[in-house]
């Protein structure tokens, strides 16, 4: 890291400010880059070395054009690694650089301390580079077309992971062989005197029951996987008939997907936290008088809202500030919750001064979903003018549908559940006893995008090499989409 003297001086004082507030971060390496380098790094998701693929080129193309036409500009880019890496754009003013540094240190604090990041690889920079080498090697060996096409297939299913998997053990390491023999479930006989037995428990019916029970035992034994499997990628890596290099590439994609998952889970908190701290550090400590206007201009750009899209920076920082204020004033707990007098509630102030302690605790324990669930209050919702919107077919417009606290919160929570991705499970890998793959979409009220679902199904077929199915719901009717390598079919499930 070779920062110019003035930047280095600022960096040191910002570190000192940040530490004095109690922020705790990995060492952070700042690189000064030109705009096109920044665009390049941003296209690679922040990593200077990644496997080659046209999709990064596409990202770059968009970023470069956006920059060229003055539509967008990246200010800050930091990656979760130990040490953290962050990039400063050469052409930015000093005040901007200070702001970015303050922002970045808060991100690094978040990466280091937030629970959801605790299982991520802190040497991801190296791992990504290793991935790149492995993929390059395959490209040399098998040709870029082939490898690229397969990567595309993998990218198409990279969201089919189980974000909680790093934290819990879903299946035992050793299969429980002793207990796997399922108890026979033939219903007990009706009580009867011996001479009546043949009438009360007729032989044919007993046999039928036994046959059904045996069948069930057999099916249970054969069911594979035993439990529906949410980490579809892991399942495919383990069981799909892939070549070794394909298996490796799929596992590379999976590892990277797991690495990025916490960032999806904590977008609002992470950005809110960083904004919360850059604004504190800048306004309380780092700003000089001459920089105030530029800072205010830039900061307001960061937290600007536009109708119809929630700005995670804005929502996050406001929530953190609200939490700080509430815990400072003691606006929590049974007594406060049960107080129904509007005036008293409003002027509630026990002068507890627990605000900062609380926000640090929150940044450690929560992810976006829990964050919103726990701290979005009716007052906050009204103050921030949050609303729910819905699509109206009659005029082809999205319209504000509700400002009711409950509705808004529910909608917001829904959009954050599983990062807005559908829940997809491997239900049966030996469907109709023909080795076909049967996926289940756990329908939560919103249908899958059908055209995408078709194409994705075709991609999974390329991995599984046998017909694939997905059970889902379209317009409130259960339906199975199938692809057998040649054509798509839609059928209704038989129970």
């Amino acid at each position, binding site marked *: 890291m070779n920062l110019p003297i003035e930047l280095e001086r600022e960096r040191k004082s910002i570190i000192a400010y940040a530490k004095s507030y109690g922020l705790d971060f990995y060492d952070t390496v700042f690189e000064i880059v030109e705009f096109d380098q920044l665009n390049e790094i941003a296209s690679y998701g922040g990593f200077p070395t990644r496997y080659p693929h046209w999709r990064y080129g596409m990202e770059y*193309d968009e970023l470069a054009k956006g920059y060229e036409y003055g539509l967008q500009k990246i200010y800050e880019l930091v990656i979760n690694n130990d040490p953290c890496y962050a990039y400063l754009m050469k052409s930015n003013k000093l005040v901007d650089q200070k702001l970015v540094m303050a922002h970045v240190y808060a991100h690094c604090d978040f990466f280091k301390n937030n629970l959801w990041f605790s299982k991520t690889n802190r040497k991801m920079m190296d791992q990504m580079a290793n991935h790149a080498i492995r993929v390059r090697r395959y490209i040399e060996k098998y040709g870029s077309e082939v490898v690229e096409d397969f990567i595309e297939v993998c990218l198409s299913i990279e969201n089919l992971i189980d974000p909680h998997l790093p934290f819990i053990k879903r299946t035992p390491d050793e299969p429980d062989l002793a207990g796997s023999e399922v108890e026979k479930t033939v219903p007990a006989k009706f009580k009867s005197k011996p001479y009546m037995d043949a009438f009360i428990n007729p032989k044919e019916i007993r046999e039928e029951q036994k046959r059904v029970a045996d069948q069930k035992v057999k099916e249970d034994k054969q069911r594979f996987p035993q439990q529906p499997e949410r980490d579809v990628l892991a399942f495919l890596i383990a069981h799909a008939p892939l070549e070794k290099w394909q298996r490796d590439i799929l596992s590379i994609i999976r590892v990277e997907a797991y690495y990025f998952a916490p960032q999806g889970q904590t977008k609002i908190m992470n950005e809110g936290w960083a904004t919360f701290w850059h604004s504190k550090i800048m306004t309380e400590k780092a700003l000089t008088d001459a920089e105030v206007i530029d800072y205010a201009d830039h900061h307001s750009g960061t937290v600007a809202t536009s*109708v119809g899209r929630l700005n995670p920076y804005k929502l996050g920082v406001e929530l953190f500030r609200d939490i700080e204020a509430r815990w400072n004033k003691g606006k929590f707990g049974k007594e406060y919750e049960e107080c129904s007098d509007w005036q008293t509630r409003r002027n509630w102030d026990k002068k507890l001064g627990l605000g900062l302690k609380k926000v640090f605790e929150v940044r450690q324990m929560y992810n976006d979903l829990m964050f919103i669930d726990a701290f979005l209050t009716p007052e906050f919702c009204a103050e921030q*003018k949050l*609303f729910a919107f819905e699509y109206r*077919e009659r*005029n082809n417009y*999205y319209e504000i549908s509700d400002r009711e606290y409950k509705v*808004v919160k529910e909608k917001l929570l829904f959009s954050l559940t599983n990062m807005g991705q559908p829940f997809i499970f491997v239900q049966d890998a030996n469907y109709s006893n023909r080795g076909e793959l049967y996926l289940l*979409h756990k329908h939560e009220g919103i249908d899958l995008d059908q055209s995408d679902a*078709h194409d994705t199904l075709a991609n999974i077929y390329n991995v599984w090499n046998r017909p694939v199915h997905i059970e889902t719901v379209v317009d409130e009717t259960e339906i199975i989409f199938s692809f057998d390598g040649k054509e798509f079919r839609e059928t209704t499930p038989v129970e």
Partner: protein
Amino acid sequence: MVKRIDRDVSRFRQIVRGRVKKDLKKYITRGEMIGKKGKDFVSIPISQIHIPRFRLGGKKMGGVGQGDGEVGTPIAQGDQPGTGSAGEAPGRHILEVDISLDELAAMLSEELELPNIEPRGKKNITSRKDKYTGISDTGPESLRHFKRTFKQALRRQVITQNYDLKNPVIVPIREDRRYRTWKTTTKPESNAVIIYMMDVSGSMGDEQKEIVRTESFWIDTWLHYQYDNLETRYIIHDAVAREVDQNTFFHTRESGGTIISSAYKLASSMIDAHFDPSEWNIYLFHFSDGDNWGEIDTDECIAILRDKLLPRANLFCYGQVESPYGSGQFIRELEDYLKEEEKLILSEIRDKDGIYASIKSFLGKGK
């Protein structure tokens, strides 16, 4: 410095041009999409290739937003109905960028590798332009600046303490009068004229005209970009030629035979009357299906081209649109007799996709 991303970008572009080639060229082969919008701005979609995923779709989803507005306030328009239905070809996410026609032309030149045009020897022609830029205290009464005059009078009255707040009367005297002044600027100028000629005989169908229309749009855009002062004239012909306006040019459907020389004669006389070749860069474009009436006329055409049009024009482009009726002989005659002529460019346009190549061959020489 070679950047690592360059490989991925060029790979992406290759794919866009290969796999989604037709999509990318859509805005070249589809004139409607590029129509001038508002103040000379057009929207250019930036291609993206969409990787399909299992994702929640449909507009049912809605969401949460932030800001003012009553319940029922529309906040954004939904997509056009009917898009994204099942079984559609790989979707494309389109990012639209508004750009000016000049930028569009610049992109066109990058895309088609068009050279800039060197105007022929007209650099000494200048135009003069008057612009009112300043104020002076002398000048003709007709240019007197009323406001500034009164301002000056007010200033004088305040200074000499003749201004009475209670009775604010301002009387300008001779010295207060202010006049507008102008500055004459000269700037080098190159004039250009495009004369489009189109065969509208019975054999030119709507599709052929559409091709001509699209191609003319791009040629227009390009030449506008190159010249400050561009005039456009339109000639249609079947057995007789006449000058028409733009609308008629693209929408007439005549019938009857084809005598191409009639159009060439008219163009030649137009140049005689209005466009002195020493002052104008002259571009001639002729579109036809190549089915001329008789060899005698073709001979005459060649004679007019050789003696009258080609010596005076920067470029004569002949685009032959393929039509089910035409014999398409004309282009071969031109080729045989005039292949020595540098200013003559011939191009056969088979279908809409051929426009791309045709524009490139017409404008690729930088004349």
